[in-house]
């Protein structure tokens, strides 16, 4: 933070009083002013504070490597990206995988498949689980981003990141969930174990799809902020918080199937609070976010 002096001196106290994100926008702007964007700092910032929605897409793009850190090459690279998109789009049209009526999400899927070389021989081929994940994420992302090209790139890169960077840690998450649940609410854990629901919790929905389709987009953005900036543990805490929030209902349910069913369709009304609590919980357990990467 080179321009510390310019910052509001009250910023230190805002957080204490409970106003979050008042000063973040300014500091983020300062960060984004740098010619060569510092990815590390952006990561730290994104982990520590919630991103303002104005800059969210830009930050995401930078963090996911869609655009390079230099401002100069942004337009150029984006042009490339666009052309690439359109090329593939065109190719897919040629080979008649897509047409005008094809939904955007499917288009994204096909483009992604083509790009990764996993395009099936024809449309009749059934969708694989990872495609399902892609579709769910893409669907969620489509709501957040207007531009289809940006959306495609974000989805594609997000999925790629999940598959490459977090592949190992994602597999550990159920265990970690159990561990933290034990710390937070032992009774609930015992109940879940008694119902033998621990193994049947919707891990796929939670950890592979990153709650896409489970939480509304406004809440999901904040979760993904953390995931994109490199911490996939937040997913565990969101899951723990969901369990804690609906503890009474879960305890009321006896069978694993019912629990799973309930958890897959949780009410969407107070997800913001859940996410906030989850972030707090995450901060509490993992300490300074910068070190929890």
């Amino acid at each position: 933070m080179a321009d510390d002096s310019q910052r509001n001196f009250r910023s230190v106290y805002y957080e204490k009083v409970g106003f979050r994100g008042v000063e973040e926008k300014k500091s983020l702007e300062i960060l984004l002013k740098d010619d060569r964007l510092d990815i590390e700092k952006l990561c730290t910032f994104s982990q520590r504070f919630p991103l303002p929605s104005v800059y969210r897409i830009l930050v995401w793009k930078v963090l996911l490597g869609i655009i390079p850190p230099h401002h100069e090459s942004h337009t150029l690279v984006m042009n490339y990206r666009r052309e690439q998109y359109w090329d593939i789009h065109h190719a897919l049209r040629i080979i008649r995988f897509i047409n005008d009526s094809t939904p955007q999400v499917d288009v994204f899927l096909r483009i992604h498949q083509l790009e990764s070389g996993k395009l099936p021989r024809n449309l009749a081929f059934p969708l694989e689980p990872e495609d399902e994940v892609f579709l769910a994420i893409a669907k969620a992302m489509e709501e957040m981003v207007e531009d289809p090209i940006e959306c495609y790139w974000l989805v594609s890169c997000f999925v790629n990141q999940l598959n490459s960077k977090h592949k190992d840690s994602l597999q550990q998450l159920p265990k970690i969930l159990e561990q933290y649940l034990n710390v937070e609410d032992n009774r609930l854990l015992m109940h879940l174990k008694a119902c033998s629901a621990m193994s049947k919790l919707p891990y796929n929905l939670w950890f592979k799809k990153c709650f896409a389709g489970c939480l509304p987009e406004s809440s999901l953005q904040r979760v993904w902020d953390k995931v994109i900036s490199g911490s996939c543990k937040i997913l565990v805490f969101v899951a723990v918080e969901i369990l804690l929030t609906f503890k009474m209902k879960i305890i009321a349910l006896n069978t694993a199937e019912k629990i799973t069913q309930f958890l897959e369709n949780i009410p969407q009304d107070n997800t913001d609070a859940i996410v906030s609590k989850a972030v707090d919980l995450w901060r509490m357990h993992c300490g300074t976010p910068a070190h929890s990467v």
Partner: protein
Amino acid sequence: MAQQANVGELLSMLDSPILGVLEDITAAFKDNLICDRGPMLVNNLVDYYLETNSQQALHILSTLQEPHDKHLLDKINEYMGKAATRLPTLSLLGHVIRRQPSWKHKLSQAPLLLSLLKCLKTDTDVVVLTTGVLVLITMLPMIPQSGKQYLHDFFGIFGRLSAWCLQNSGHVAETYLVHLHASVYALFHRLYGMYPCNFVSFLRSHYSMKENLETFEEVVKPMMEHVRIHPELVTGSKDHELDPRRWKRLETHDVVIECAKISLDPAEASYEDGYYSVSRKLCTSLKHHQTDPSASHYIDTQSSYGTSTPYSTPRLTLSQMPGQLPQILSPQSMRLSTEPQQVTIWSPSAVCGMTTPPTSPGITPSESSQSASQPYSKAFSTSAGGKGTPLGTPATSPPPACISDDFVHVSLPSAAATPPKKEDKPDPGRPLLYRQQNVTNSEKSLDTPGSKSSVTLSDLPEFLGGLSFEDSAEKDREEDAISKEISEITTDAEHMVPRGGFDSPFYRSNESLSGSQKKTHSVVSSVQGHGLTSEPLTSSLDKPGPESARETPKQTFTPIDKPCGGSGESPAGNREGTSGETSILTPSPCKVPAQRRVGFGSGQPPLYEHLFEVALPKTAYLFVGKKTEELLKKAKGTQDEDCMSSTSPVEVLDRLIQQGADAHTKELSKLSLPSKSADWTHFGGSPPSDEIHTLRNQLLLLHNQLLYERFKRQQHALRNRRLLRKVIKATALEEHNAAMKDQLKLQEREIQAFKLSLQKEQARYHQFQEEHENIVAQLHSQIRQLQHDREEFYNQSQELQTKLEDCRNMIADLRLELKKANNKVCHTELLLSQVSQKLSNSESVQQQMEFLNRQLLVLGEVNELYLEQLQHKHTDTTKEVEMLHAAFRKELEKAKFCVQQQSQRLDASQKRIAELESQLAKKDHLFLEQKKYLEDIKIQARGQLQAVESRYKAQKRITQAFELEILDLFGRLEKSSLLKKLEEKTEAAEAAEERLDCGNEGCADTVAGYSEETIGRNGETKPPSTRGSSSSKGGSSSELSTPEKPQNQRFSSRWETSMLLEPSTTVPLTVGSLPSSKSFLGMKARELFRNKSESQCDEEGVTINSLSDTLKTELCKDPSMETKAPPSPDNLSLSPKIQESSVGQLHIMDYNETHHDHS
């Protein structure tokens, strides 16, 4: 009990007649008392005393010490309760109290006092009452303070007894009442003296009652006539007189004297100070008018004594004569001198002729009696000396000078007479002191005669009156006695020494009783004797004083010896037989009462009448007035009470006693001595028992009275001793003062002498001073003259000196001149010698000059020669040197300049270096910046490249997808056509089969080429025409045929050739279309892509082969295919080679490029 028995034995032995045993027993008792603290021994003693009336027991009891007092008092109290033993108990108590034991203060707390008071209040026996009252009176001054709580008891007792006196309720004998009355009178005095206010208030309240009025009139009022107003009544109060502070300062005898002071009764009163003088004066002035002139005269002469009356002054004057009355100046003697005969005669012992001397425990009685007896004689001796003159000269106007002359004579012999007397005294210190004073006081004694005469004058009429009765026959006897005694002086001294040895307590108690009795008699006789001898003494003044003074010791000492020797020349022996008899016949007091009893009730012997008159001037006056009446009363044997109203009860008692004594002597004279009891029977038959009882009681009462009087006398003695001490002190001080005055006078005299000598010395001094001054003046004038002379001489000398100076100056001048002349002479001589020397020198020089001239000539020639030689040489060398110098100088300058230049250059270069260094630093900085920038750019480019790459990958995927699609389509197409041909022409089908094979291969080639083209054209995609197909054979051949094409175009050329070989291909591949050599990046990218594409080509080739294989299998068995197959591997095997070479080229180029770029 052994001890009990022991005590019994001791008691029985107590009265043993053997002296030694007595002493032992008494000592044993005392030891026992000290050891034993129990009451047993005391009780036994008391019992024993009450039984036997033993004197020894009484003695022991009366000297009991502290711890036994309680037992004694308890015992006495016990016996007091019983009426039978009351009287002896009371007498015992009286004995004990009169001893004034150390525990007397305890009496007030003891129950004994209460019982005594009770007894006095209730008892009806007059004897007991009288005894008790006397005891009480004795006790009162001992407990003045603590007794105040019984004050009203005392007063009550007084009231009762006074009433008793009047009423005589018990109808006892009148004689008893006389005793009782006397004791009540004493009580009245005591109470009035001690507690006047309380007592008066009691009297006031008690006698204000009517029933007591008579008592007051009859009894109390006469008593009050004999007292003065007590000063306490004026100044004090009831509370004040009970104040402990009042009594604290007073001892017992002080209290007694206090009480005596206020009495007007001469028998009771004490005439210490003014009281007496006033009272006496009143009496004497009335009686003796004829003495007034002399008295007044004495007041004149004694004016120095101020207000002191003639009667009081003698004491003082006497006290001023220590030389004459050295040690014996006791108060008694003084009192004797003032009221000489009164006291001596009025002492009852003298009257009765049997009194025991005051045996006070502290003082040796014999000594005191001696000292008491001596003063009498002494005083009379002096007074006798003084009396001579008034007798010889008319009494009305005695010349003072004559008297003084006389008394010089008297005093001197008396002073001379004293020494032998002093030696008798045990105290050796005083005589010496007084003897010295005698000398100094000789002058002072001149003053004394007046005082002496005053003594004599005052009493003279009485003396004369009394002495006129005396017969002159005694005078002769006296003379004889004196002459004999003078001869015995030497033996007397010897007698006196052993007397001191007899001074043991027991001896004293026995001996002194008898001895003192005699002494008193002798005193009386001596008084008489001296009174008589006063007349003849006028003629012989020298002798009588000393004679009489010597007589008295004789008389006093001798009686002890004399009785043993029977009668003789003692004065007592010269007297009537009565006194001698009593003295001899009464060795122990036990016999005295018996003798007395006889005396009482009988008539008076006329012999003592005149003695009473002499002794009692005051009473004598009354006595003479009422002599006739008294005589009548005496004949009756009783005394009339009425006449007592004017006289004090004491006098009445005295008279009673005298009458008794007279009667006794009368009776005795008639009786034969040896058998007294027989006499009794002979005298009056068997006496009635009642009478005997009465007499016995009377005797007891009398004894009590006597004891009381004795106690009083003791108190007086105590006081006298104290006063004596004071007087001695005063006289000592006065002596001291006188001595001091003498010294002062001596010193003054010395001072005067010194003053005189001082004056003389001063005069001499003045004389000397004048002489000295004269001499000094003379000397001064001489000095002045001499000085003048000196000045003159000085002037002369100065003048001479100036002359001398002048002379000296002249001499100096002359000397200078002489010196100058000498100098000149010397100079000239020197010059002369110099000239002569010069002359000789010049001669020699001339010779030398000649020689030198010659030499010079020779040398000049040689010189010229050398000069010539030298001139030649010198010219060349100098020029060269100059030239060299110049050259060197220039060179030096040049070098200097050069150095300067060099240094400037150095500076410049250094600056340059600094500049360059800074530039270098800048450049380095720039370099760094550039590097950073480059990095930045690299990263940027990498990002872009990544994007591009991804695009490329996408493109490849697209192409793949397309190819797949195409192949799929082809496959379908072929299938459909084959099916058609099979149906139509089987031959054509074979051909078609071949073509298909070729087409497959070509297709693969074209696909690769197309891909390369698309890259080179930067994305402009055109669906490649798959129509043109050529044989692969030709392609291979052409490839071999074109080796000399540029390297960088080799690939393309290959593909070109292959393309060219195919006639169907419409689009020519141009080298320029490639992004070749325009930019480094482009080139590099191309190389890289090509490289990659090559590798991909291989892969694709493989895949294609595999595809074709699959196709083959699909297209079924075609033998031609197998034959055609080898060429394609060949074709493919070529490509790796090319690849390697191209890669090597790239490396070289890359190196170059990077090198260039970095530079």
